[in-house]
């Protein structure tokens, strides 16, 4: 149980092998080596069977979680990009539709305006033609009145000049001749 040197130094505080390094007291090596190997073996088995696998699992789980999160983020980004693309396409389509509708409305309005214009023109033309007819009629009437006035005048002038009462027919012929000569 006790190494030999302790029996020679019993009851003293003085370390044995005075002067040399205590590390070279070989009688203590055996116990240290055996205990160290036992503890090391225990530690090694605990490490390799329990602690290291557990820690690896945590690290792997974390790496997996991070990879998943990154993947998810990338997917979300792609989705958002696709959505933005779709939105942009929709906007372009809407703009095209609006432009088309605008153009259509304009064309329709133009057509309606042209139709209205044509109708108005028609009405005005008709009115104008009617007016022309009326004017022509009143002019002709006036002109015939002029003939009557002329023959009356000629009849009066002949009567005044000659003292002979000219017939209406003569006066009218004279007036017509004068009018012809003047014309």
């Amino acid at each position, binding site marked *: *149980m*006790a*190494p030999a040197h302790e029996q020679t130094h019993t009851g003293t505080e003085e*370390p044995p092998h005075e002067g040399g*390094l*205590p*590390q*070279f*007291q070989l*009688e*203590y*090596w*055996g*116990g*240290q*080596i*055996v*205990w*160290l*190997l036992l*503890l*090391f073996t*225990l*530690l*090694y088995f*605990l*490490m*390799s069977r*329990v*602690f*290291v696998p*557990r*820690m690896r*699992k*945590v*690290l792997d*789980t*974390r790496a997996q*979680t991070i990879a998943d999160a990154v993947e998810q983020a990338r997917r979300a980004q792609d989705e958002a990009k696709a959505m933005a693309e779709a939105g942009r396409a929709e906007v372009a389509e809407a703009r095209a539709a609006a432009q088309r509708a605008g153009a259509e409305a304009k064309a329709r309005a133009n057509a309606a305006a042209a139709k209205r214009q044509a109708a108005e023109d028609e009405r005005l033309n008709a009115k104008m033609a009617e007016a022309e007819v009326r004017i022509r009629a009143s002019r002709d009437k006036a002109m015939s009145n002029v003939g009557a006035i002329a023959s009356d005048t000629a009849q009066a002038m002949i009567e005044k000049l000659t003292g002979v009462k000219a017939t209406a027919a003569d006066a009218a012929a004279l007036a017509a001749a004068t009018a012809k000569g003047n014309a």
Partner: protein
Amino acid sequence: MASPMEQFQIKKIVDLPDFTIPGTNYTVDMAITNSSLAMFVAAGALILFFAFLTASPKVVPGRFQVVGEGVFTFIDDLATSVMGHEGRKYFPFIFTIFTFVLTMNLLGLIPGNFTATSQLAVTVTLAVLVFSLVLIIGFWKHGLGFFKLFVPSGLPLPMVPLLFLIELFSFLLRPVTLSLRLFGNMLGGHVALKVFAGFIVALGGMAFAGGFGLHNLGIAGAVLSMGGVVALTALELLVACLQAFVFAILTTIYLNDAVTAGHGH
């Protein structure tokens, strides 16, 4: 003043029956000493740490989990950068070495605690463990082809025997350097700490003794030594982490040699 070496003295705490290795008459004193207690505390702290860490891990980690996962990924990156995809297989071993050595180093820095890694027996055991693992894996994977590790490719034939011997020698020295590096760093750091701490006591005593202006000198010296202890503790904190890392990275490189027999991957 107590010897700065006294801190490394193995003391029995609980005496246990000796254990005789079967087939030999070599007996092992299985008593729980301050050294093995330090190992127990380190192993227990590690188990508690990782039990808490992996009890309810969150996908979004808290502060504590970030620290634990930082250590984990640090060594994981080291293993995969040196060994490639083979690194995963040997990772638990490298990780156990790193965390165990680191914990023993750090716990040893708490004043009054014993530093198990300042014991040559401990560092030699760890180094021999790594070395034997390298030998087993090397010969198991490559058979006698493992000796190719000692013959760099593209070597002129006459140089082969000489370089083989040099490479073999350096290979055989690996466990020695691996164990002595950690042992020496821990030993030296703790001796220096103890020496400076001893100065504080000695110079403080001189200050109390007084007389001949020694009073002020003693106080100044003690304060300076205290500053030295603080600075050295900070340095030792760095060394404790660094040496655990060096031990782990060398373990990884040696294991990679065993796996690839010097032919890359």
